[in-house]
């Protein structure tokens, strides 16, 4: 055959194959053109031909006396079968190409190849008992030759592999269904256990007390759905038996014997011999786990499960099955245990345990492995198994029909009896079979316990071919895998949530039929606090024949899952009902429902997280459309907002109507920012900038409306230049959702205008601006706070530019200069704003920095504030602003650096705290490690502050004390469920570290 033909047959290294095939071992074989062609069935033809050449090499082996060895004779038989038995050839190539480990086994034991023969006597599946007989014979053929068991164990391994070879050959050539493969593997495991027990018994001392002894299989072996290679989970149970005198022996002594037997069984299976090991016998699921006694009596088992066992232990018992030893004892064990399993869901804490178990199942998988994993992670095999078991525990209590230790059988039963939709169950079963088969193929290659897809292209190619993908194997496999993963990923929707709808609405004959009580039990387990209310909402959303109801029937199962993962599932569902009722039949809303897109997911997250945003949404439900793209969720720039607002205000002549239109824009923008924030699209700094921009343009619009109103009333026009200076967090572009706007009003009379007259006009405009912004309306009013002005609350609200200058030149305190660090132009006359900033610059950036006395004063002031400013009864450790390491500490560090150095370092002449800290590192004024501590604390405190408003709709300067609010805030910030103190703990750590920096850098304390 030419190299080209070989390549077409499937060889990846055709020239090497050609060279191998030209060696003399292949003489007489390659003459048949079908022979080489046949390699195309192999998953990896290159490997198959290599392994075959090594087998044929054995033929030339000679014994010491010169004759052929036994092995050589067997290899000769293989050569003969290759020409005479087509079926043998096909099956051999299948095995050699898919399993390096079984190939190596054949090289060591060529005689085993006879199981592949067309008429091989042990080619087909044997019953469990036949297998047991076979393995016991293997062990007995050499028992008691020496004490180490080495021989016996090796013989057992050889016999076991031979059966594994027979099974793999049938499996790979597609003769047996998946369910039969896993059941046969479980039979093999039972028989191995029985043989190991036989061996353990044979080596007991003569005077050992007699006992009855049974091995119970759990896990995959218990479910008769075993892998090619996996731990076999077992529990040992024993009872005293009659002694020579006819009396039952002492229980203690019987257990001694039984423990020896158990250890013997484990040793016989686990221990590595020249023939390797079989698999690990793992007794870790026994009562008390690793710390518990290896063997217990039946009563002791019962006592344990009556008293101490945890929910997961009952879940494990679901799969308990007699495997080997005393069958009567084994069966009584299973009979005694099952009642525990089915009453588990009545136990206290069942719901909590299940939630915790669910979180563990879905929990942390290293990200770099997640997409190569077949078993773990969302949408993995473990998730299918766990979910099926969970539903069994919930519904199996009242319905015996769904009780089965086998995943596929249980799933089928649940669909048959109406707990899961029929089609969903079928798809899921298909996906499960596919993923398990994939896992089998990966394991077969080296007979290694693994459930990660290889990354290497060649290995992927063989696996794909072994799965039957011969054309463009790697891509095709990937496609099929993605499809099934997708199915499994939607698992919760299918098996948990969709059936819930049917409890209150009639879907179709193909769907589940859950009773109301079943539905309530299920909703409860899924985390809904008020399952009754939830059911009513589901009913309202799905009743009727409207297109909306139809679409909601499809979408709701998905949404229910998303709500369940949000801080407040019940509120999410209820709000969804409100949105749905408000938006009624608008076409784009129906489109949104139909596509069940990212948009719907964002909506679910928002509705389940934030009262603040839900309320904004209720005022203008059409804003939901904004969730449809990330582009829409990008905050608008200053310029865009200004342009829109200018054209809006121009349309209205009445000031109150005009401001209402402006505030509608503001409302929409707040919704946009908050939604993007909740969906994790914005950093906390970006949120601050976006909120500041919205405040800026809103205030600017209000000023313009006020001036326009003044001009309309007055005959001479507006007689002064008027500007608003932003201060505080708004000045630093760090506003929060509920921040007041800190401002100062400045004006400068036009030439020739009487100053008093001008001040009156400016005062009127300032007050009108404030009034307009504080008007009760559909959104939160925007309060303007001018307390940072000269002389504070007792000073004039509006001053002239000249008066500011005079004041600052004569009277100002260090703290006023410090407050000015965040002053910037905000709205009104831009030029005057710039002049004001110019005027205060030498004040806030003193040319020579601060002298010792001033620094001393500032430190003293800060120390006093720490003890006085805190609201009564507030816990300083939780106060976001004034607590140790809180926002105020960090701001003061930045500000002290600015006042000392900004005159020289231009890059410190900024109003934003974080930019100042970053630039201070650049200027060598702050260690980068210290900056990191400060920034981390600042970010976390700002995030919590924002989250407080989002969750409750009200501002809050504390880490929440109410446990439920704390949990929700934590969840919004990405902390896991079920550990509500984690956020607090993290906050304390960050602020403690920031406080250390403050003490060193701001206060100058040294150790």
């Amino acid at each position, binding site marked *: 055959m030419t190299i080209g033909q070989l390549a077409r047959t499937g060889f990846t290294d055709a020239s090497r194959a050609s060279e191998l095939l030209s060696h003399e071992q292949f003489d007489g074989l390659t003459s048949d053109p079908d022979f080489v062609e046949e390699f195309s069935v192999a998953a990896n033809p290159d490997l198959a031909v290599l392994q075959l050449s090594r087998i044929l090499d054995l033929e030339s082996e000679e014994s010491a006396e010169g004759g052929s060895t036994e092995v050589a004779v067997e290899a000769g038989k293989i050569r003969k079968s290759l020409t005479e038995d087509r079926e043998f050839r096909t099956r051999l190539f299948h095995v050699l190409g898919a399993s390096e480990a079984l190939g190596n086994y054949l090289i060591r034991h060529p005689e085993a190849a006879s199981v592949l023969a067309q008429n091989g006597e042990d080619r087909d599946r044997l019953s469990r008992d036949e297998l047991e007989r076979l393995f016991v014979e293997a062990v007995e053929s050499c028992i008691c030759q020496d004490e180490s068991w080495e021989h016996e164990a090796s013989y057992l391994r050889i016999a076991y592999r031979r059966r594994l070879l027979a099974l793999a050959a049938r499996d790979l050539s597609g003769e047996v269904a998946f369910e039969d493969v896993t059941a046969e593997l479980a039979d093999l495991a039972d028989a191995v256990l029985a043989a190991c027990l036989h061996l353990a018994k044979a080596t007991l001392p003569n005077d050992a007390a007699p006992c009855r002894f049974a091995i119970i299989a759990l896990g995959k072996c218990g479910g008769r759905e075993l892998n090619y290679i996996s731990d076999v989970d077992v529990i040992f149970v024993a009872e005293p038996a009659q002694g020579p005198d006819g009396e039952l022996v002492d229980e203690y002594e019987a257990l001694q014997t039984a423990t020896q037997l158990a250890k013997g069984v484990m040793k016989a299976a686990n221990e590595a011999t020249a023939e390797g090991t079989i698999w690990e016998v793992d007794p870790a699921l026994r009562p008390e786990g690793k710390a518990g006694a290896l063997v217990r009596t039946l009563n002791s088992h019962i006592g344990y499960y009556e*008293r101490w066992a945890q929910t997961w232990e009952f879940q494990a018992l679901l799969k308990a099955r007699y495997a080997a030893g005393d069958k009567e004892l084994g069966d009584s064990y299973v009979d005694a245990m099952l009642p525990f399993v089915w009453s588990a869901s*009545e136990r206290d804490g069942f719901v909590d345990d299940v939630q915790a178990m669910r979180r563990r199942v879905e929990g942390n998988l290293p990200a770099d492995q997640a997409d190569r994993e077949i078993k773990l992670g969302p949408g993995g095999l473990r998730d299918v198994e766990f979910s099926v078991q969970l539903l069994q525990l919930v519904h199996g209590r009242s319905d015996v029909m769904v009780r089965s230790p086998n995943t596929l059988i249980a799933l089928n039963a649940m669909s048959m009896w109406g707990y899961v939709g029929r089609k969903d169950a079928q798809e899921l079963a298909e996906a499960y079979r596919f993923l398990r088969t994939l896992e089998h193929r990966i394991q077969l290659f080296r007979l290694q316990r693994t459930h990660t897809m290889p990354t290497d292209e060649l290995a992927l190619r063989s696996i794909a071919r072994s799965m039957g993908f011969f054309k463009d194997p790697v891509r095709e496999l990937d496609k099929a895998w993605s499809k099934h993963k997708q199915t499994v990923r939607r698992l919760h929707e299918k098996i948990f949530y969709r059936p819930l709808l049917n409890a209150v609405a009639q879907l179709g004959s193909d769907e589940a039929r859950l009773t109301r009580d079943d539905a309530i039990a299920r909703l409860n387990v899924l985390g809904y606090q008020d399952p009754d209310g939830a059911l009513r909402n589901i009913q309202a959303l799905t009743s009727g024949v409207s297109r909306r109801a139809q679409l909601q029937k499809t979408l709701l199962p998905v949404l229910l899952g998303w709500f369940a993962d949000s801080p407040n599932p019940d509120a999410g569902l209820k709000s969804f009902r409100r949105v749905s009722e408000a938006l009624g039949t608008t076409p784009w809303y129906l489109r949104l429902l139909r596509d069940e897109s990212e948009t719907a997911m964002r909506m679910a997250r928002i509705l389940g997280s934030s009262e603040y945003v839900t309320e904004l949404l209720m005022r203008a439900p059409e804003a939901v459309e904004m969730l449809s793209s990330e582009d829409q969720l990008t905050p608008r720039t200053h310029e865009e907002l200004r342009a829109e607002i200018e054209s809006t205000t121009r349309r209205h002549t009445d000031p109150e109507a005009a401001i209402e239109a402006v505030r509608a824009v503001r409302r929409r923008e707040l919704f946009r920012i908050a939604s993007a924030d909740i969906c994790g699209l914005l950093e906390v700094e970006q949120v601050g900038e976006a909120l500041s921009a919205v405040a800026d343009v809103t205030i600017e619009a209000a000023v313009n409306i006020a001036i326009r109103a003044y001009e309309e009333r007055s005959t001479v026009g507006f007689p002064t230049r008027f500007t608003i200076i932003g201060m505080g967090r708004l000045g630093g572009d760090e506003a929060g959702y509920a921040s007041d706007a800190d401002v100062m009003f400045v004006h400068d009379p036009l030439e020739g205008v009487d100053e008093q007259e001008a001040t009156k006009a400016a005062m009127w405009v300032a007050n009108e601006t404030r009034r307009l912004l504080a008007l009760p309306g559909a959104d939160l009013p925007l309060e303007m706070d001018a307390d940072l002005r000269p002389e504070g609350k007792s000073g004039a609200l509006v001053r002239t530019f000249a008066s500011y200058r005079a004041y600052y030149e004569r009277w100002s305190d260090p703290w006023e200069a410090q407050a000015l660090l965040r002053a910037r132009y905000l709205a009104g006359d831009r030029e005057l704003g710039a002049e004001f900033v110019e005027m205060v610059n030498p004040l806030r950036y003193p040319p020579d920095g601060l002298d010792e006395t001033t620094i001393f004063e500032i430190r003293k002031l800060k120390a006093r504030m720490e003890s006085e400013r805190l609201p009564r009864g507030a816990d300083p450790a939780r106060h976001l602003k004034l607590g140790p390491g809180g926002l105020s500490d960090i701001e003061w560090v930045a500000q002290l650096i600015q006042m000392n150095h900004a005159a020289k370092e231009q890059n410190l002449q900024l109003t934003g705290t974080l930019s100042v800290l970053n630039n201070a590192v650049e200027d060598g004024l702050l260690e980068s490690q210290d900056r990191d501590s400060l920034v981390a604390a600042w970010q976390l405190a700002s995030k919590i502050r924002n989250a407080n408003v989002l969750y409750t709709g009200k501002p809050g300067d504390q880490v929440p*004390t109410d446990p*439920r609010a704390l949990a929700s805030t934590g969840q919004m910030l990405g902390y896991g469920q079920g550990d509500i*103190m984690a956020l*607090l703990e993290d906050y*304390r*750590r960050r602020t*403690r570290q920031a406080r250390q920096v403050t003490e060193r850098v701001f206060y100058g304390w040294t150790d």
Partner: protein
Amino acid sequence: MDKQTEFVLRTIEERDIRFVRLWFTDVLGMLKSVAIAPAELEGAFEEGIGFDGSAVQGFARVSESDMIARPDSSTFQVLPWRGETLGVARMFCDIQLPDGSPSYADPRYVLKRTLEKAANMGFTFYTHPEIEFYLFKQKFKSGFRPVPVDDVGYFDHAPHGGGQDFRRTAITMLESMGISVEFSHHEGGPGQQEIDLRYADALTTADNIMTFRLVVKEVALEQGLQASFMPKPFEEYPGSGMHTHMSLFEGDRNAFYEAGKELQLSNVGRSFIAGLLRYAPEITAVTNQWVNSYKRLAGGHEAPSYVCWGSNNRSALVRVPMYKPHKGNSARVEYRALDSACNPYLAFAMLLSAGLKGIEEDLPLPPGAEDDVWSLSPGERKAMGLEPLPTSLNRAIQAMERSELAAETLGEHVFDFFLRNKRAEWDEYARIVTEYERKKYLPVL
């Protein structure tokens, strides 16, 4: 009602139990107990017993003071010392918040978290404490020097009564509560006893130490005696330490053991010791938490004052005991600074953290010290690079304040409370004028 509740209720009926004590431990290591009547027990299982956390040392600020003690029914145990007629039983509790999530203020949870960290690295942590304490003849009265129950010394056999009987009764009682005792003998000081608990995982051991302290005090009372775990009751006699042997297991294998290595000590074991030494100063405020603890450390005898290790050096902070070569699983290291009055949950968590940190950072083991550190001159100690352990509670607090390891291990809540409380203790002590000062200064100044 689940089976376990039924079991407990039935036992209470059958054994005529009149009170059930719910136990938990405050941050300073004091056992707290709420007694409830059997009738309330059902509710306690279902919902836990609510209590005001702000009333317990270190548990909560007023704002979140609602806490739940949820009895762990698996720890149900009839208390043996109250006589048969009026039975009393106890259960340990987990401290939770009203939503059922764990409280970070619960010392048991601090240890559990640290054990989990070890588990994530593949280790289980075993400890074995040697607990020393003094027995006195009568109740303590302020101003009177307590009189020890006997006058004999280390390993001496007192001819009758006193410590001998006491130890027998106490051990019987401990065993009846499922706490195994390894060893017991008379210690160095008059009236001083030592009882060693069997090796167990650290959480069980810490629980057992809490029970142990109570049992010892109860038995003493029954015999008309008084027991104390005060670290250093007398200047002239040895203090009461709690030398603790530790080992890490990976599955069934002792991770400290490696055949053929020097002292059969594996790299894991070496780094673990290195971690203990590196972090010893900053964890000392927890392992030795009282003003009085430092008088023991200053006093020589078997108490260490310098950060060093040795294989058979009883003056070293960390000792690697010799053991029979084929007994690899008994490989262990002994930390000798701990005293009997520590909070065992927090102390074990700190030791484990320090050791794990050594493993994580792959710290090299400094050379061992085989000399009696006490007999060296200050110059020699300096030359050998021997750092002292903190010499007072004040120094220990200062070392701990800067410790990220301590904050991480204890959690910010306990870390903060502990430091505040200890600072207050030191400040209070600093203001006290002692008899010593009056005796020394009044006549001459």
